């Protein structure tokens, strides 16, 4: 009995390293990597990495573990995390922060040249830190990160679509909501629409390491800013205003009639409203007889590579990322999940041109999205909250508070 137990133990001990060896041995792969991709693109990415393994000139074979991690979660998890993915997808507004916090490695000369040649100028400019001739830190994946207006045709008259005031009146009359997130977490992105509409600027240049320079320019606290605040106040004061950017609120107990949200919400909106779904660029508002059209940010998604210690591994990862963001892969992604390509050739594709949501976004009054200090977004939400709580004749107070918060944003480096 005792002998048997000892034998069992021994054999167990002996098998352990053997299992370990098997695991390490691999089946003819050169590198094992982890890749984080956005929702709905896991299977596609696995196939694309397989294609790369077959076709790449260097004959490199990656054994990739592909996981679906949303862009916002990826940005949080990539920082300070030794086990973060080697290649991950992020939203462009996170770039400076990711670079500052050492979660990305810069593109080598070859990869950078390929990216600059293949993609639209906006996306390349957006991913280059340190101004023109600066460092490129990511591979553009999409050029569609903007918002448009979804509305319910059964409530909103066609001729009211371009006027904020008329839209609000329609919603109030029908007892429906006008959903645009200005005052909740994440509302900074939409609030900016009003300020850029009146010609305000908020520009935060960085060096090529993602650190913000002290030469920022922001004139939200100005005549134009006041006009924007007055326009915003019309929506904020309405009983129809709902601080949300979810197309699913079309189906809430008090349903929305208008939702301002990103391209990604198109399918949800379609599901909720069906034939009644209308989409349009953002409307205009009128202050003192003058009309201002709301602008929409246009941002990008990009693929980034984690800092590497092995130069060749880094080189081949860059080749893989270049492939994954190539015309072929971007088109496949457009077909699978509807992401609007940043690749110039892919943008010329007939199917891409036929996408209704992308067409509306292209027709919108666009402002390219830059890099902002992380806390700037919270500052802008605070501005909308204060505008909501202010009297209509004292709107310069919240604007003043906003302006005085700006200098402090640079000191916080998170």
């Amino acid at each position, binding site marked *: 009995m005792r002998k048997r137990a000892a034998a069992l133990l021994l054999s167990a001990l002996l098998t352990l390293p053997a299992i370990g060896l098997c695991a390490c041995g691999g089946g003819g792969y050169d590198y094992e990597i982890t890749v984080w991709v956005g929702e709905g693109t896991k299977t596609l990415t696995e196939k694309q990495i397989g294609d790369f393994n077959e076709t790449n000139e260097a004959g490199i074979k990656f054994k990739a573990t592909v996981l679906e991690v949303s862009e916002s979660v990826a940005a949080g998890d990539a*920082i*300070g995390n*030794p086990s973060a993915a080697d290649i991950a997808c992020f939203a462009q507004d996170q770039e400076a922060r990711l670079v500052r*916090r*050492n979660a990305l*490695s*810069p593109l*080598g*000369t070859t990869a950078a040249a390929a990216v600059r040649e293949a993609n639209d100028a906006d996306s390349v400019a957006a991913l280059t830190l340190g101004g023109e001739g600066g460092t490129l830190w990511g591979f553009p994946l999409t050029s569609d990160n903007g918002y448009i207006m979804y509305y319910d045709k059964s409530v909103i008259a066609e001729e009211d679509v371009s006027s904020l005031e008329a839209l609000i009146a329609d919603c109030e009359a029908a*007892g429906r*909501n006008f959903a645009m997130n200005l005052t909740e*977490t994440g509302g900074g992105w939409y609030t900016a629409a009003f300020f850029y509409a009146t010609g305000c600027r908020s520009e935060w240049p960085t060096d090529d390491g993602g650190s913000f320079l002290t030469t920022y320019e922001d004139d939200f606290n100005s005549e134009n800013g006041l006009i924007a605040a007055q326009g915003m106040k019309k929506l904020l004061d309405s*009983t129809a205003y*709902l*601080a*949300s950017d979810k197309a699913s*609120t079309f189906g*809430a*107990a*008090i*349903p*929305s009639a208008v939702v301002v949200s990103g391209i990604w919400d198109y399918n949800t909106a379609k599901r909720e409203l069906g034939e009644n779904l209308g989409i349009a660029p953002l409307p205009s508002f009128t202050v003192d007889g003058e009309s201002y059209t709301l602008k929409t940010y246009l941002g990008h998604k990009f693929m980034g590579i984690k*800092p*590497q*210690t*092995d*130069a*060749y591994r*880094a*080189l081949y990862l*860059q080749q893989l990322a270049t492939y994954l963001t190539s015309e072929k892969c971007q088109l496949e992604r457009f077909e699978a999940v509807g992401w609007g390509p940043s690749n110039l050739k892919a943008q010329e594709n007939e199917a891409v041109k036929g996408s209704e949501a992308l067409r509306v976004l292209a027709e919108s009054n666009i402002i390219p999205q830059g890099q902002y200090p*992380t*806390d700037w977004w*919270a500052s802008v*939400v*605070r501005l909308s*909250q*204060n505008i909501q709580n202010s009297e209509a004749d004292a709107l310069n107070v919240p604007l003043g508070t906003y302006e005085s918060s700006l200098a402090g944003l640079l000191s*916080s*480096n*998170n």
Partner: protein
Amino acid sequence: MDKEQLSAAEYLRLRRWERLVYRISKFFTSIPGRTKSFFLKLKNALGSFFRALWANLVEIWTTFREGSWQTRVSFLVMGFGSLAHGQIVRGLAFLLLESAFIFYMIFCGAYWLGKFGTLGTVETIQVRDPETGIMVTQYGDNSFKILLYGLITLFFIVAFLYTWRLNVKQNHIIDGILASGKKLKSNKDDLHSLVDDSFHKSLLSLPVFGIVMFTVLPIIFMILVAFTNYDATNDGRFNLFRWVGLENFGRLFSFGESGITVAFGEILAWTLIWAFFATFTNYFLGMFVAMMINKKGIKIKKVWRTLLVLTIAVPQFISLLYISNLFAENGIVNATLMSWKWIKEPIKFWGDGMLAKVMVIVINIWVGIPYLMLITTGILMNIPQDLYESARIDGANVFQQYCKITLPYMLFVTGPYLLNSFISNINNFNVIYLLTGGRPWEPAWMVNGTPAGKTSILITWLFGMTSDSGDYKTASVIGILIFAVCAILSLIVFTVMPSNRREDDYS
């Protein structure tokens, strides 16, 4: 109220509220005395510690001076004495431990311990690889690992010193036994004792090791973080963090730009208010419901109880999120009220600070009553019925019976439970986080990128710090303060609580 010590008879003559006031005032007047006696005790404890240490040192010295040569060698080569006297198992165990320790210290421990004072000096840098022209990272020190492994090394050193002391003591005992001419324990005896008279050691060694590694060590690690600048920026890998002393505590308690005192004060106040209401509304209403169901003449009691217990059967994660959506601005409640024309515009249940606070307390009542009903049902049935009978004969009405019999009995029995539930409500993460998440946000309370709102309690605030903005240093300070708040409250309440008084108080 006379603050001097009352005799037992005088105390019993007091009315109930006077007793409470007396006890509370006694608690506060006794603080100076207690503080003094605490320091006296501390002095005594320190004294006895140093005396014990001295005695140990003396014993070690005598062991060395009077011991055999084997014993003396054992001071350097642990277990040598035992080995030389044929106690192979014991000796080998000591020797193995010593070699393992030395091996560890040489290959890892020395490095971690050496860096422990600075938490690392070598920065991580980016260099261009000459062959490929690609930037690669050269990692330097890692503050996080240094803090963790440095601490573990310290633990090992303490454990080693203890083992070394045991080794010396063993040799002392061996010398003693040999001098008296008796026989030493054999290897067989040693092994046998592990499952016999030393069985407790065999059984407990693994759990104790587990507790030290998985409970004590993490707690000390977390406490140490409060004295560093570890946060999202100084993450330890790319940017080293370092010791900062009491800076984080100072920031919490200093007014001005970087001070977070206002946010902390407001959130602490609401945490206590919340814990108070969450505990006592549940307690009294739960008791009330239990009494109603217990009342004679109520039919189908089991059905009522089951109906209430159904609330517990549904996980809070589901029920609370669901309720949170019901009361949303565009939720069913608002829609219904509007369709009935009771309200013109939606009520912002979660958008108004005061309303949101009332809402979470009320919803917590709904969640909490069934538990209290279950607990109190049993206790209520235990109250001797003759007490009520004689009270009725004396002409006491229902309210008087409740105040004079039921409540004191309940308080007496459930005092510790009340305290426990108060403390757990201070840390009641679920209800707050799932219902409001802390909203409505208060912009002025934003600390290092962590938002806080009117319904944030300390624990949800702390959660935001660790999970959203990576402000680990402040989170650690808040954690320590939550512990302090709970500890102080427990001390006060235990002193004042009836369960802590003599039993005749009740009867």
